Every structure is written in structure tokens, then in C-alpha cells.
């Protein structure tokens, strides 16, 4: 169809990826404990459904927010007409305070440096429009959120060059990986405009270490490029080592008000921490006035509904609510995480050790027929169609080692999680007894622990066609 744009006819939206295909299968046959107990259990959706009761009870006690009223007076008209892209001041202030609270008040955020957007999806795209021209590149550590291919590249025409991280060191970002990625971009004739990290990481569920943050700041400082830190999971950190924001490291290194601090931009959202993805609440924080000004204008294409801004400004301004919520939410996430991890262990499956997020990064390498991505997809299809669990294969997250899967744990009830774990155990038991002998299984497990295995994995990565990434 020559009628439409290239954007409309290509597949840079990335929605042909397995990440989305799994969703489609789930939609056709969704699990319900009563109506469809054999249906597919959704474990591919990083939602936080654990703490709604806390918000609901707040709403019950605060009817004003619900009824478009302030101190008994109707403000419906005011809200209905409010479309100022600077956002509701009380909401911005509440967001800035909430973000500070999430970081133990070790750093503070200026509402004047915040831009409101329709979700983090829009925030990330908007930042790309502000920082990169078509054809420019951003470096992203792998594995990364599959939606980034669409959000960062599709309409902006920017490129992503991966920073390869491996299981050899728990997928940490190393200095050499950063340099290699930069060189790779140069070889492809791409101008690198910055690095984008997700901290805590999706899909790893780990917080970025201080060492990594220091490496990143050094790197972007030397190369004179930007650093975007997508911190949408910051409120989901449930155990040590705790969350360190790049803003804290800037402060520690006394780099506030320097050139490099103007190139550090934070993305935040209420979709994960508060479990409100439907409300479309995203935020950009930047120390660069031009970025704030341009992003604010661009937010016209995706403003936050004024009724939602009003509701949330009331909710988040209630400090006793936010304090209790953050604490309670973390406890519940920790419990759920423990249940998933021990359930997987019982099935002989290990996870990357994690302290945050709404998912685990699960190691199923020992279940692969061969150490290839074909085998990974084969295994994934079995898990979706036979075991009836929608989980996300590592290849959809651009992981460079086959066999890793992201499994979500916070978007279902405890009973459903139990059902899912039972199914998985039965599947693994069946798989191991029919396809492998016990000794072969043990041999593979010990192979995995040796350093030489990483050399093998890297080789198998380079053998692949680029399109398979």
C-alpha cells in the first residue's frame, strides 16, 4: 500500500515479537479459577495488583477527591477545562515529593523540572524526540524491556545499540561492555546521543549498583552524551541492597549543577509502584531547561487527564498514606517474590538473585534441547501452549544468552500463582524424565557454572543472524 507511511507498513512497532504473541494467546484463552481453570495463566504482564485495597480504603475516607470537590465546593468545571500542559501544580508538587520519598528523601525533585506525560511510554518517546535526531542512537544494556523498540525507535527514527550484559557477572553493566557498544555504534556509522538504563531493571528485577552508576556517569561524562534513567520500578525494591538513584550518585560525587547533571534525565510513572497503569501517569525530570521546555510542549500530544491529576494529587499529598503504602507494598512484593522463587526451586529451576520489580529472571537453560534461541522458542511455545503459562522469552528482551525467561508474580492472586507453579513443576518433571537422563542434566548444570560456558554462549550469539536479536 503506497497509500500509507513507512511507519504504518513496517514492523518497527515491534508488535510481531513473541512478547506480544504470548499476550494474544492469553487473550484467546485466559485462565479463570472458576470459568476456565485450564486456561492460560498470564505471567507475562508486569502489573502490581497487590495493594489496591490500600488505595480503595483511602478513597473511602476521602470522598472529596472522588466527587470533583475541594472543601465541599465543586471544582468540576475547573477540572473539565484544565488543559494547561504545565500540569496541575498541586499534582506536580505531590509527584515530586513522592519521588523524593521513594528515594528515602536522600534527593529532592523540583516540580519546575518535571514534565507530565501519558505514561512512561510517552515519557520515553518524548525524551528521544528531544535528545536524538532521526538516525541517532542510544545505547541500552541487554536484556531490556521489549516495548523500548517501539517507544524509543518507531516514530522517532532513532536507533538502539545494545550494551551486551551476560550471566557471567549477573548481567551487570561493565566498563568494557559500554566501550564495545559505543564502538559498535561507530562501526554502524551511528551517532551516539546517550545511554538509557532501567533502574531497577526490567526484566532482571535487580537494582543498579553504585559501581555501575559510577561507570555510567564517567562514561557519559567522557563521551559528552546523555543518560536516561527509567526508574519506574523504584517503589518495588523490597530488600537489600536497596535502591540507589543516579540522582543520589550525582549528589554524592558533587556533580549537581555541572554540565553532566544537565544530561541526566529521569523517567517515572505510577503504573508499577502504585499499580495504576490505566491512569496513564508518566513523568520526565530533567535539569536541562531546554529539554523541560520542549518536552512540556510535546506533552500536548499526551497530557494526563485532569480528573486523574486531581485524584492523584490528593492521594499523593496524603503523606501518611504514601508512607504506609510504600512500606506495605514492599512487604507484599517480598512475600510474593519468595513464593515464586521457592516454588521454582521445588521444580529445580533457579532465578537470578533479585531485590526489586514485579517479576523474576528465570534460568531455564538446563531445560533447553540445545543452547540456541531456536530451542528457547521451542521451550517457550511448550510453556505457553502445553503448560498454559504466558511467560516472556529472553530473546524478546534482546538477551544474548538463550534460556532465560521473565516470569511475573504480582499480577495474580496467591492461589493462581500456586496453580501456575504446580503446572510448571509437573512439566519440568515430565520433561526431565523423558528427554534427559539425570546425569546428563547434572552435567549440563555444572557446565553452566564454569567460565568456559560463557565463551560458548558468546560464540553462539555471534553465529546468529542480526535479525534474531
Amino acid at each position, binding site marked *: 500500500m503506497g*497509500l*500509507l*507511511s*513507512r*511507519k*504504518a507498513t513496517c514492523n518497527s*512497532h515491534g508488535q510481531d515479537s513473541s512478547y506480544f504473541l504470548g499476550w494474544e494467546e492469553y487473550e484467546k484463552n485466559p485462565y479463570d479459577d472458576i470459568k476456565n481453570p485450564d486456561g492460560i495463566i498470564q505471567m507475562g504482564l508486569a*502489573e502490581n495488583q497487590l495493594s*489496591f485495597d490500600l*488505595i*480503595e480504603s483511602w*478513597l*473511602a475516607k476521602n*470522598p472529596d*477527591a*472522588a*466527587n*470533583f470537590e475541594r472543601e465541599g465546593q*465543586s471544582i468540576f*468545571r475547573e477540572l*473539565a*477545562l*484544565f*488543559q494547561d500542559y504545565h500540569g496541575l501544580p498541586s499534582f506536580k508538587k505531590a509527584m515530586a515529593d513522592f519521588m523524593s520519598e521513594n528515594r528515602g528523601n536522600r534527593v529532592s525533585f523540583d516540580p519546575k523540572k518535571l514534565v507530565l506525560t*501519558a*505514561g512512561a511510554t*510517552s515519557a520515553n*518517546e518524548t525524551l528521544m*524526540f*528531544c535528545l536524538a*535526531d532521526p538516525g541517532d542512537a542510544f545505547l541500552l544494556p541487554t536484556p531490556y524491556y521489549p516495548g523500548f523498540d517501539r*517507544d524509543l525507535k518507531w*516514530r522517532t*527514527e532513532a536507533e538502539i545499540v545494545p550494551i551486551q550484559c551476560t550471566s557471567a557477572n549477573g548481567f551487570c553493566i561493565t566498563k568494557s561492555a559500554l566501550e564495545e557498544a559505543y564502538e559498535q555504534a561507530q562501526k554502524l556509522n551511528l551517532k551516539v*546521543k546517550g545511554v538509557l538504563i532501567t533502574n531497577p531493571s526490567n526484566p532482571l528485577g535487580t537494582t543498579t549498583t553504585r559501581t555501575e552508576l559510577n561507570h555510567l556517569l564517567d562514561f557519559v561524562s567522557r563521551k559528552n*552524551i546523555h543518560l536516561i534513567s527509567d526508574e519506574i520500578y523504584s517503589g518495588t525494591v523490597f530488600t537489600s541492597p536497596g535502591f540507589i538513584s543516579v540522582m543520589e550518585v550525582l549528589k554524592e560525587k558533587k556533580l549537581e549543577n555541572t*554540565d553532566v547533571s*544537565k544530561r541526566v534525565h529521569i523517567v517515572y510513572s505510577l*503504573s508499577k509502584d502504585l*499499580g*495504576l*497503569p*490505566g*491512569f*496513564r501517569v508518566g513523568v520526565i525530570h530533567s535539569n*536541562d*531547561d*531546554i*529539554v523541560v521546555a*520542549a518536552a512540556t510542549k*510535546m506533552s*500536548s*500530544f*499526551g*497530557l494526563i*487527564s*485532569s*480528573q*486523574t491529576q486531581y*485524584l492523584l494529587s490528593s492521594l499523593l499529598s496524603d503523606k501518611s498514606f504514601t508512607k504506609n503504602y510504600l512500606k506495605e507494598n514492599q512487604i507484599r512484593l517480598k512475600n510474593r517474590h519468595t513464593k515464586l522463587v521457592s516454588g521454582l526451586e521445588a521444580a529445580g529451576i533457579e532465578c537470578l538473585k533479585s531485590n526489586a520489580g514485579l517479576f523474576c529472571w528465570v534460568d531455564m537453560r538446563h531445560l533447553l534441547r540445545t543452547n540456541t534461541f531456536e530451542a528457547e522458542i521451542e521451550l517457550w511455545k511448550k510453556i505457553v501452549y502445553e503448560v498454559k503459562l504466558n511467560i516472556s522469552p529472553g530473546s524478546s528482551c534482546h538477551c544474548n544468552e538463550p534460556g532465560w525467561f521473565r516470569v511475573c508474580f504480582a499480577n495474580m492472586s496467591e492461589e493462581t500463582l500456586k496453580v501456575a507453579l504446580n503446572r510448571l513443576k509437573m512439566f519440568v518433571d515430565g520433561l526431565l524424565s523423558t528427554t534427559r537422563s539425570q546425569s546428563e542434566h547434572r552435567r549440563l548444570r555444572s557446565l553452566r557454572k564454569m567460565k568456559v560456558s560463557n565463551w560458548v554462549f558468546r560464540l553462539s550469539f555471534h553465529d546468529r543472524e542480526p535479525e534474531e536479536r
Partner: protein
Amino acid sequence: MSADKNLLSKLAVGDKHGEDSPYFDGWKAYDNNPFHPDHNPQGVIQMGLAENQLCSDLIKEWIKANPQASICTAEGIDGFSDIAVFQDYHGLKQFRQAIAAFMERARGGRVKFEEERVVMSGGATGANETLMFCLADRGDAFLVPTPYYAAFDRDLSWRTGVRLIPVECNSSNNFQVTKQALESAYLNAQETGIKIKGLILANPSNPLGTSLNKETLQTLMDFINDKQIHLVCDEIYAATVFAEPGFISVAEMIQEMDHVNRDLIHIVYSLSKDMGLPGFRVGVVYSYNDAVVTCARRMSSFGLVSSQTQSFLAAMLSDKIFVDNFLKEVSKRVAKRHLVFTEGLKEMGVSCLASNAGLFVLMDLRQMLRDQTFESEMSLWRIIINKVKINISPGSSFHCSEPGWFRVCFANMDEDTLQIALQRMKSFVVRDKENKNCNNKKRKSFQENLKLSFSSKMYDDHVRSPRLMSPHSPLVRT
């Protein structure tokens, strides 16, 4: 304050967002000194904002009577968690159905809309940009009849890289778009190697306040079909039509014009004008082209409607009795306001383009210009903002090809404020006419003095000459 500009994108450091245009300057003057009947009666009256504040009482009443429509009230809270997690870019089914039904009622039930084609966007602003991303590549162009909504430059071009080619219309035929003008613009573009992907226009028009008649719609549809280019109709003012020929949507024309390729037809809609809910950011892309529906829906991730808002509107717009009454009232109240305002202007000898829709009129102040240039239009506009203290929008900001036209909004204030605005206009117009009756030298010195001590002069003149302008005055347009 900011990093090296080379480190940012061209979009971020350029000015193609268009917000340096005078359209926005007036807003700034208003923001610095906003009128308030009690706190700031000498402030600037905002008549540059096309908002519909006439029917919020009807919505408030409905909200009070329907607490279950909110997910935050005791009556509605059971729905909270399901709605709060709902981020499916298809949107809530009940919401899509309710929007399709509302769009049908706003067209008198003369067309049917399929809810599967209703795609959400971040307001009409988001809808227009999204359609450009779907239909055109960077460097391609869309034709747009002038005068057109000032922010189209930002919405359609800024991030998309799509060019806008104006199709000039003029007052000789009340700014109607003609086949000749379309063909001429198309040909010129072709000759300079510009690839035209489509035609976009608002119907009813902003800033004209007129809806297209059947003949013009047929011309447009035949034109785009002949060239096999897209037609994007921004119908966000559909329900504000209050007089003949009534509102004829492109959706109705499709039914009659079988030969037109439906894959070329796309509608933009919103609740910001018809319902007066710009804060809720409800935009709709409705396309007859399946591939565009799919693409636009994927892009809607960048500007989904808050599920809280979807849920609320699904309930309200499913209430057929409410909707029918609301649509009737909108039309009635807009008609009344329009009449009060245009009659008030007529009494002082100021005419407007004959209009039957919209939340504004296009006022004809050509006779008040020093000469027929845009410089004079700007001078006059500055006087109106700074001395008469009314924010109105100069025609040049809408790419009008003739100087002297100004868009004035009338539905974003209460009646008392409207009367005050009319009084201020009257004083200014009367004074200006009187001075035109003197010789040129005196007029020049008046305009200089105007800058220094306008307000006291205004009061004195008003006391001295309270009569209305003669109906035979050359300033009264026939």
C-alpha cells in the same frame, strides 16, 4: 541553565513548535493580567480561547445523579482495581461503544459508526499527529485550506516532518474552498516535486465557524478520490452547529458517494469542544482504512485516554436521554450566545463572517486597518489587546490570506463578561470611527495618543457620544 544545544535534537532547539506565533502572545498578555469581575475588572478578557463553557451544568447534574459512574465513590469503588489496571490500547469496550453512539447522535443518527474503528488518542491534538504519522513520511505534504487552526502547524508538522501546503480561500466567496484552488495548490506542489499525501480540514471550520455544504463536500471527495490522496476531516465542532445547512459529516457523504475509495477517508473527533471537556483529553481517530486503524491503535499507546475517564464517560454517554438532551442544549445555547454577540457587534457597525457553528466568529475589522497589510493588522491587534484589553486572535495566525479578520470566542465566559467585552469593543469602535471622520493628520496624532492615555479618553468619549453608529455608516457591512 542548559547543556550545549548541539547535544539536543533539532526538534528541541528549533522553533517549529510554532509557539512563538502571535496566537500565543495574546494568551501571554491575558495570563499576565487576567480579567476577573471582582478582583481585576480592568484585566484582559480572554476571547482567544475556543472553549465551551455553556453546558457544564448539565454534566454536573448528571454526575450528582450518577455516583456509580465514578470508580472512586462508594457506589462505584468495586470497579476501581479493574479500571486502574486497564491499559489495553483497544480501550474499554463500553467506552468505544458509547463514543460511537455519541458520534452518531451528534450527526442526527444519519450515520452508523462501528465501535471497532474507534481509536483513542491524546485529544484531537494527538489524533491529528497520529494520522500524519500513519499517512505520510517525513517530507511529504498535506493540503490545508486557509484560514486554519493555528496549532495545526505544531500538531501536523512538528515531530512528523510533514509539510503543510495552504489552499488559499478568500472572502469573495466567504472563504469557501473551491475546486480551482485545490487543483492549483496541488499542481504547484507537484511542479516543485512535493509529494501530496492528502487534504486535511476542519468541518465545522475553525476559525470560520461555518460548516461545509453538500456541494463543497462532494467537490472535496471527488478531488481526493481523483488524485487518490487521503481526506482527514477534523469534526470536533460537530455538535456546535446551530443553523442551516446543519452538520453534514464526511461519514454521511461516504454513504452517498459509493465510488469514493473508503481507504482514503479518516475522521478526527474529540469531546473538548462539543462537551466542553478539554481537560479529560479524549481524542478519537476514526478511519475507514483497516491498516490505519491498526497502526493508529498501536500508536495510541503514546496517548491513551485515562481509564478513569473512559469508565466515567462510558457511563455518561451511554445514557441516551442525557445525550439527546445535551446535544439539543449545546446547539441552542451556542446559537443564543452567537446571536447576542453578533447582534451586539452589528449595533456598533462591526460585521462578522456569516456563520452557523463553532464557539467563535470571524470578525471583519478590515475597515479599521490603516492600510490593507498584515503590519496594520498586527498594530490593530496590539491596540485591542493592550488598550481595549480583549484577547482576540489575528487572522494572520490562522494563515488568512487577507488582513483584517479576527477570530473572537464567545462561549468561554459568562454573559456578563460578554457584555463587558462588547462595551469595550463599542467604545473603541465608536472612537475609531469618529477619528476616521477627521482628517488624516488628526487621526495620526490620535493613534499616538492612544498609546499614552487611552483609558481616560475612552470614558470621556463614551459620555459625549452615547448614540449608536448610523446604520448607513460605511463601516456597516451589508
